[in-house]
């Protein structure tokens, strides 16, 4: 369980990045934190593994106040994958990179190698095991960073902008992967701008703007709320805009992805015996 109570965070230069955040994320939840550039999303999740400590208020991870634990201790249960993979990659090969944390945690070489090969396979990285991470594309480096955290099997996984630099197919795989680890009981928190990705994955959406939480609810509710979405500098999913423009024709509001829209449209057309439909 991740509990955030009255969290205020001020950077040394005086900028108040978080201005009183209350948030509770239960074990096994799948949550997307969304909002404009500079809304405080990354600052918030850096509190989850103790990289930042509250100026005011507190953050509890499974009941432990992050001020009473080291980052190393918190990291065992909270895995944070940074937005920019180059901030966390440093090894000579992908395999070494992914094995690093496990070795640090003192696992035997046998377990290290087994786990590393498994996670590389899951993230479609096996062919690059002996390659330097710096020779890979941005999207691939991003997956290496993800692998190097997931490999130690943290209970809560935090992904900062996981879809950046990923093409359409990789995003689909990433979504399946996130769903899979979430089904296995892991808490997954993603920080993202990617409205269409969220519209298809449909997590709980926490919307932030200017250091505060301004919306919290099901993706279908939050992402189809024009005013809320606008306030957080997002743009509604295309399908939501489409559904809105045709609500007078009976298309339900709250549609946010193409697959549900397809069924809703076919149903409407059949009801009206539209001749174009065979």
């Amino acid at each position: 369980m991740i509990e955030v109570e009255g969290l205020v965070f001020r950077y040394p230069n005086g900028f108040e990045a978080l201005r009183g955040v209350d948030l509770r994320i239960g074990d096994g939840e799948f949550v997307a934190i969304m909002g404009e550039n500079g809304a405080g999303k990354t600052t918030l999740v850096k509190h989850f593994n103790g990289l930042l400590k509250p100026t005011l208020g507190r953050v509890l991870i499974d009941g432990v106040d992050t001020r009473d634990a080291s980052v190393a201790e918190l990291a065992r249960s909270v895995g944070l994958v940074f937005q920019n993979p180059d901030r966390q990659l440093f090894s000579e090969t992908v395999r070494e990179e992914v094995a690093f944390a496990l070795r640090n945690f003192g696992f035997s070489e046998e377990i290290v190698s087994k786990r590393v090969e498994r996670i590389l396979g899951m993230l479609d990285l096996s062919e690059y095991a002996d390659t330097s991470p710096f020779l890979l594309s941005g999207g691939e480096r991003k997956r290496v960073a993800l692998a190097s955290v997931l490999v130690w099997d943290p209970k809560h996984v935090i992904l900062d902008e996981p879809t950046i630099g990923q093409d359409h197919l990789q995003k689909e795989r990433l979504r399946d992967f996130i769903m899979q680890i979430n089904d296995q009981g892991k808490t997954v928190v993603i920080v993202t701008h990617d409205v269409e990705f969220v519209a298809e994955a449909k997590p709980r959406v926490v919307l932030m703007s200017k250091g505060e939480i301004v919306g919290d609810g099901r993706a279908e509710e939050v992402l189809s709320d024009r005013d809320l979405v606008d306030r957080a500098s997002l743009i509604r999913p295309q399908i939501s805009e489409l559904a809105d423009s045709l609500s007078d024709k009976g298309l339900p509001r709250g549609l946010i992805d193409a697959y549900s829209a397809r069924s809703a449209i076919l149903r409407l057309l059949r009801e009206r015996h539209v001749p174009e439909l065979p």
Partner: protein
Amino acid sequence: MPQIKAEGFSFTYSGSKSPSVRDLDLAIERGEFVLLTGPSGCGKTTFCRCLNGLIPNFYPGHLEGRFEVCGMDIARAKTYELAKLVGHVFQNPENQLFSLSVEREVAFGPENLGLPREEIRERVEWAMELVGISDLRDRAPYELSGGQQQKVAIASVLAMRPEVLVLDEPTSFLDPKSAKSILETIAKLNEELGMTVILVEHRLDLASRLADRVLIMNEGRLVLDGEPRRIFGKAAHLLGVGLPKVTLLFQMLREDGLDVGIPITVEEASAILRGLLD
């Protein structure tokens, strides 16, 4: 005469077994707005590196055929000559920013061109104004959010007044509203200044309505080339291209037997459906 011209062009990076771009035949005229997309590893970035001479000057390898930019053969042109003509904005702005203030950053390019002081001042103001960062002039780029940093990177390239603007996934770090405003800025540069734009994007929902022409690459080859509407009516989704969601929706409806055209914007999609439901 085309501004960018490739004839039977292939490029193989040193140490790589197969070409990253192969058998490329292509002509781009001055003032075109070209959207380049395709799955990761399809050769998009390699193509962009040819445009400013990073290939073969910085990335050595084996070249076949011809590749000309503004009448210069990239096999012989110097990077600094091409740098004046071709501005390059990278995916991750952190990789190209280094100054201690935004203003200094934007001034760096024109200073290096040896321009008179007044002209530098004028260009810096113009570029900052265009992308909307004049109020950030005294801030350090490293303090800014990802989206703001990308705007600085774009301004610093614009200040060089290039003839060709190459942007390699420039919006991936931006929230949707900033992304939209950046893309509209790019469209404006294209329209008003006649600047040729080569935009690499995975997210096509915002970009496809702005471009005159879409190029889709796959496994190093140019596989589709044409007007966006025509290209997206084809099987572009099979190539792992992230189609606009309304386009995807109508492709799915077509599979259901409803063949009513393939829209690329919400407005078009809405009008088609309204016509059927009225």
